[in-house]
């Protein structure tokens, strides 16, 4: 029987309110998540607390190795009871962690211009991915080297308004360029982030591009329409409410193409959360 125990506890280092309804929490773990990759997530809950009942899925915003253990970072937005309870945690609080869970983003070595497209809180997993790429963690031989094969990483971040553009400082540290948009025009391009990308795509060599995205369903949907006829690989990280996180409850289903049946439901937790955008089906 395969034993891959990824159940453990963590200690809150800090939990900082970085913008309205947005928090960055860091945890110290000593037993698990050492090899957690961008795109993966954990199920998290305060230890010993029965309300909220279910753990909450949070994608990874950063993973660091320290002498004391593995430090996990999460950037999350308070949307309901579960995330509100997480936002109340303070340094020293203990949490239960199940993870890392799910499939990570797949890196395509022959595509040297990486575009990360995030809407709102979708910035979290893509920021960790940007950092991972900038540090060449997937190719140790080139770590710290300025080589001809160096990747270009462009981050497109959209939000409703300037105040909701969260996490830009981190992105700026790790990306070659940062493009922002707001629905109300209060910062960056006035319009949606997919409209901004559409403008820029015209001037780019598509053969060298690969896209990664995370954000609201409407954004992913317009992205899928935008690149439908284009030959650009695109992976998206999807979000659904989850109970178990390990493919047992079948609560987090999304509709995908299925070769034999036409379509079927996949579990975001176990089959994703990262999917090829061309496999997603929309109602």
């Amino acid at each position: 029987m395969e034993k891959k125990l990824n159940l453990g506890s963590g200690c809150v280092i800090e939990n900082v309110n970085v913008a309205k309804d947005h928090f960055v929490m860091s945890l110290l773990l000593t037993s698990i998540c050492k090899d957690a990759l961008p795109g993966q997530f954990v199920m998290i809950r305060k230890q010993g607390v029965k309300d909220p009942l279910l753990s909450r899925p949070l994608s990874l915003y950063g993973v660091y190795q320290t002498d004391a253990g593995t430090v996990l970072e999460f950037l999350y937005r308070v949307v309901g009871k579960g995330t509100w309870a997480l936002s109340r945690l303070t340094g020293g609080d203990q949490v239960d962690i199940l993870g890392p869970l799910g499939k990570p983003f797949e890196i395509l070595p022959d595509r040297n211009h990486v575009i990360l497209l995030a809407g709102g809180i979708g910035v979290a997993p893509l920021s960790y991915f940007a950092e991972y790429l900038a540090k060449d963690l997937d190719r140790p031989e080139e770590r710290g080297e300025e080589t001809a094969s160096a990747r270009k990483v462009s981050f497109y971040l959209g939000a409703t308004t300037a105040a909701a553009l969260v996490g830009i400082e981190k992105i700026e540290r790790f990306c070659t360029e940062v493009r922002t948009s707001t629905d109300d025009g209060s910062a960056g391009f006035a319009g949606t982030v997919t409209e901004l990308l559409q403008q820029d795509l015209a001037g780019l060599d598509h053969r060298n591009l690969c896209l990664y995205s995370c954000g609201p369903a409407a954004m992913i949907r317009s992205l899928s329409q935008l690149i439908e006829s284009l030959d650009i690989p695109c992976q998206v990280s999807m979000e659904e409410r989850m109970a178990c996180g390990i493919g047992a409850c079948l609560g987090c289903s999304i509709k995908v193409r299925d070769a034999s049946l036409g379509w079927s439901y996949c579990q975001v937790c176990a089959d994703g959360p990262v999917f090829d955008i061309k496999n997603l089906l929309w109602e």
Partner: protein
Amino acid sequence: MPDLSVDIGGLKLKNPIMTASGTFGYGEEYAPFINLNDLGAIIVKGLSLKPRMGNPPPRIIETASGMLNAIGLQNVGVQAFIEKKMPYLRTLEVPVIANILGEDPEEYQRIAERLTPVPGVAALEVNISCPNVSKGGIAFGANPESAIDVVRRVKSVTDLPVIVKLSPNVTDIAMIAEAVESAGADALSLINTITGMSVDIDKRIPHLKNITGGLSGPAIKPIALRMVWQVVNRVKIPVIGVGGIMDASDTLEFLIVGATAVQIGTANFINPQSTIHILNGLLAYMEKRHIRDIHELIGTLKC
């Protein structure tokens, strides 16, 4: 070590801790977290004759001390279960119970026929109580005549122990229990989820696409316990308690009112090792009180 073994209608279990259908996948999902052989039995996700896609999302929402689900019996179908899931389950040394659901009484019979000769299937749990499918499920569990029809048909084609899972969404669960017993059921499990609803007040839409769903978790435990107590007083066959069991003390409450075994459901979602924590807690309780056999606990409610 205390003797925890129980007999469920001819099925011998080394301990009374089983997994509730629909909360434990096909077993393998939990192999990284526990030694599956430590369980009393594994009850797998409900099986239909043909594969079922399940309901459109959103399918779940947390509510006060519980959760609503409307999965809609997404499952691989009986054939794929036999071919793809049983080979793994057969390698375990734990009884595997197949939960079955048909759209009509004939379909229950056909699924039972298919599963009976399959090596490794130790018993059948007949689901006449799923609240989230339009055909079948609770339609047969809500009145005694149709419940009797389904159970007789299943019994006519199988020599495996037949457990019938009852719905709480009825006026008199004990009456349904008696009817099912008279039709030849070897054991009963109760309760399935309680139908419920939750609304998003910003969008003024139901939180579940299916509008209604089945409530599970600690919120339903007092109801489940009351129903088990009512039913054990009316039938002779063993009763398996299900509903909001989160820890060993919840388990003990069910045993004391008269359940011979229990099923752990929603607790598996909160901690994938819940079943083993419960088993250890049960053992500790018995050892502390020098109880040598679990039958010294079952049905010992004083009132």
